């Protein structure tokens, strides 16, 4: 992939007549960071970056085009791969978009199962995110502890649907399978174990002086810039904007649950710095535990899936549905022409905007900060490229 729009290695005249040169470094698609295949062309003046130009497309799998070939039901496994770190919410987004097109109502038990699955997925995704942030900053232990907890969540979700990463749990009109017997007991046992561990995690790394120094006041994104760049989710809330799709444009049965929306307050630096985004994710895990307890306590009886014809032919029209995925609100835009295959599917993800904003905020940061910024913006490559 050439970057012919970028001029390379400018030789500049210094006022004293010295010639200086900027280094053009390639933080290539392969690097030992967990965020996937992303590439940055970094123009650096020593350690300080002048620009970090993202180059995406290495994980483009043309999922949107595939939707036009496999049909509505058949697209559900593909939605897992849109964001494989938190796949349940992508399932829900697609299911909700199709239900909006056809006007299908999901039975209440199905909605509860969806919420339970999505919130567990959210905790798992945030665990991976904070662990990877720690690892990128240099602390390798929180990552392994986070992955250990994520493995327990994967076990729980495996009981639901048999898969540990790409779940394919939901169907248009509800969920594929019901909660297995004993699920509630095991899930609550996990939550009882997990909630104190969030505090332990914080003690280990979040309040560590070196960690705070690495993240506080780094890459401050003011609220206006965050909104203008369409940052969503914890990135937006870390900049102080209190907006959560689950609360402000609620869907499914979220109105029935009580939970807070953590917002960045600039506790260790400025509002909108990397530390705020990181702490918003830590606190969101606690809120998800709250939602889960309420949901697990009150699952109603009934069917989990509505009657949807085998060949799903929604009426012609468009639907734009947003779900609060782990990385922010994911917009699912589906155009139907009345046939059994979607006419156009467009998935607008939170990581896409986060990649776009990096070019803007990386001026003047150090190369070591770039890694921290990518980690705290919680960018995963499959969401960016689809």
């Amino acid at each position, binding site marked *: 992939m050439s970057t012919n729009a970028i001029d390379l290695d400018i030789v500049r005249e210094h006022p004293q007549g010295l010639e200086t040169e900027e280094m053009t470094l390639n933080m290539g698609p392969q690097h030992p960071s967990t965020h996937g295949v992303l590439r940055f062309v970094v123009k650096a003046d020593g350690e300080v970056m002048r620009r970090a130009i993202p180059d995406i497309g290495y994980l483009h799998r043309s999922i949107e085009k595939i939707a036009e070939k496999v049909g509505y039901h058949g697209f559900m496994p593909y939605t897992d791969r849109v964001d494989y770190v938190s796949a349940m919410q992508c399932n829900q987004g697609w299911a909700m978009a199709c239900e909006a097109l056809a006007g299908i109502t999901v039975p209440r038990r199905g909605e509860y199962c969806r919420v339970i699955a999505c919130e567990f997925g959210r905790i798992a995704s945030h665990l991976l995110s904070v662990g990877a942030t720690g690892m990128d900053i240099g602390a390798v232990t929180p*990552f392994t502890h986070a992955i250990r907890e994520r493995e327990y969540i994967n076990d729980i979700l495996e009981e639901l649907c048999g898969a540990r990463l790409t779940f394919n749990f939901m169907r248009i009109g509800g969920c594929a399978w019901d909660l297995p017997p004993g699920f509630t007991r095991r899930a609550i046992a996990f939550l009882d174990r997990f909630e104190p561990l969030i505090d332990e995690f914080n003690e280990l790394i979040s309040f560590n002086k*070196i960690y705070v120094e690495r993240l506080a006041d780094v890459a401050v994104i003011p609220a206006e810039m965050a909104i203008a760049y369409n940052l969503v989710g914890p990135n937006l809330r870390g900049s102080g904007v209190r907006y959560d799709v689950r609360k402000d444009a609620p869907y499914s049965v979220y109105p029935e649950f009580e939970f807070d929306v953590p917002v960045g307050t600039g506790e260790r630096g400025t509002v909108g710095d990397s530390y705020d985004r990181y702490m918003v994710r830590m606190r969101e895990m606690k809120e998800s535990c709250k939602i889960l307890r309420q949901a697990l306590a009150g699952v109603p009886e009934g069917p989990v899936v509505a009657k949807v014809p085998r060949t799903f032919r929604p009426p012609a029209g468009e639907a734009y549905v947003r779900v609060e995925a782990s990385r922010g609100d994911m917009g699912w835009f589906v155009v139907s022409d009345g046939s059994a295959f979607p006419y156009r599917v467009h998935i607008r993800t939170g990581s896409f905007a986060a990649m776009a904003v990096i070019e803007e905020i990386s001026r003047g940061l150090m190369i*070591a900060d770039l*890694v921290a910024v990518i980690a705290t913006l919680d960018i995963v490559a499959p969401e960016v490229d689809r």
Partner: protein
Amino acid sequence: MQQFADYLLDEGLLAGMPKSLGYVLVVAFFAFVLLNFIMLVAGVTSWLERRVWARIQSRIGPNRVGPQGAIQWLADGIKNIMKEDIVPTAADAPLFKLAPYLAMIGFFGAWACVPFGDGLIVADLNVGVLYITAVTGLVVVGILMAGWASNNKWALLGGIRSAAQIVSYEIPAAIAVNTVILLTGTLSMQGIIRAQGWAPWNWFLFDNPFTFVAFFLFFVALLAEGNRTPFDLPEAESELVAGAFTEYSGLRSLLFFLVEWGNLYIVGALCTSLFLGGWQVPAFTDNGFLLGLAQFVVFFAKSYFLVFVAMWIRATLPRVRVDQLMSVCWKYLVPISFVNLLGAMLWVVAFPNGWLPMRLGMFLFGVMTTLYFLMRVAFHLRRARPLMTWNPIA
């Protein structure tokens, strides 16, 4: 070593060869023995580090190769030696090949002055500490050369960061050493150890508050010199795959990593000799051999404990950024070390032979701190026990 060589030549055990040749043979013999010892220590340190890391990270670590994985390092070493020797095409080949050996020389030379026991030292130079500080500076040349000759911008960045870091942190380290030299008046390693006693309150660590602070300054500065976390930015894995050593593979990279792990032991050995009483043991026997053995064991245990502490630090703390690293050194450590030195000077003028109540007081302070630490460890272990034995399926 000098004495041993003279002894051999005088007793005619070397078949009456000329003195110079005799000396060379003895030096080669000692170098060989020491090299083996170093490789063994570095290798075992690498395995132990992986086990300690793993337990801290709630996993197991290498436990297959040999009993509890104890010869994992041997397997890794053999694998590395058998790997393909890759020299990048555009790299500066002579410098590229020379760099690991320079680092090795710098690291290896320091071992000539490490005192394992009373008389168990290769060369008791009367400028021992200065010699060690000077020779370990050669490692910087090796790393810089590796970064430059690799023809890789990331390696260059890593090499330059490393050079800046090591050179900067020499200063607090040297000043902290000076604080101890004030008490002994000699730079010789054995002299410094002999000036201490076997009892903890006779160690320089607890001699006065200034040497107490100097110990921590020295330890932190040596961690930074050894490119260990939290100062391991030159080898930061998430950004520069292995920093200055990115392009190295096989035996050459093995040498660099052995230098890193062996350096850990030098850190421990230096801190032990200067602050923790070295090999001093109470004279419990007349048998010279047994006494020597006890001294060796005590020295090794003390220095390896500090290695252990360095491993803990690596497993838990994140990495400091380059500008923060420099500011920590120049804005905090250097002024503190100078003030510390001044305080130590005043103390030595006031109490030329030390002041026992202060020593005992500092020792008590140290004991209470250790007890508090152990209490916290016990508390956390108790709190973690239900988590460690949690069964998800029940």
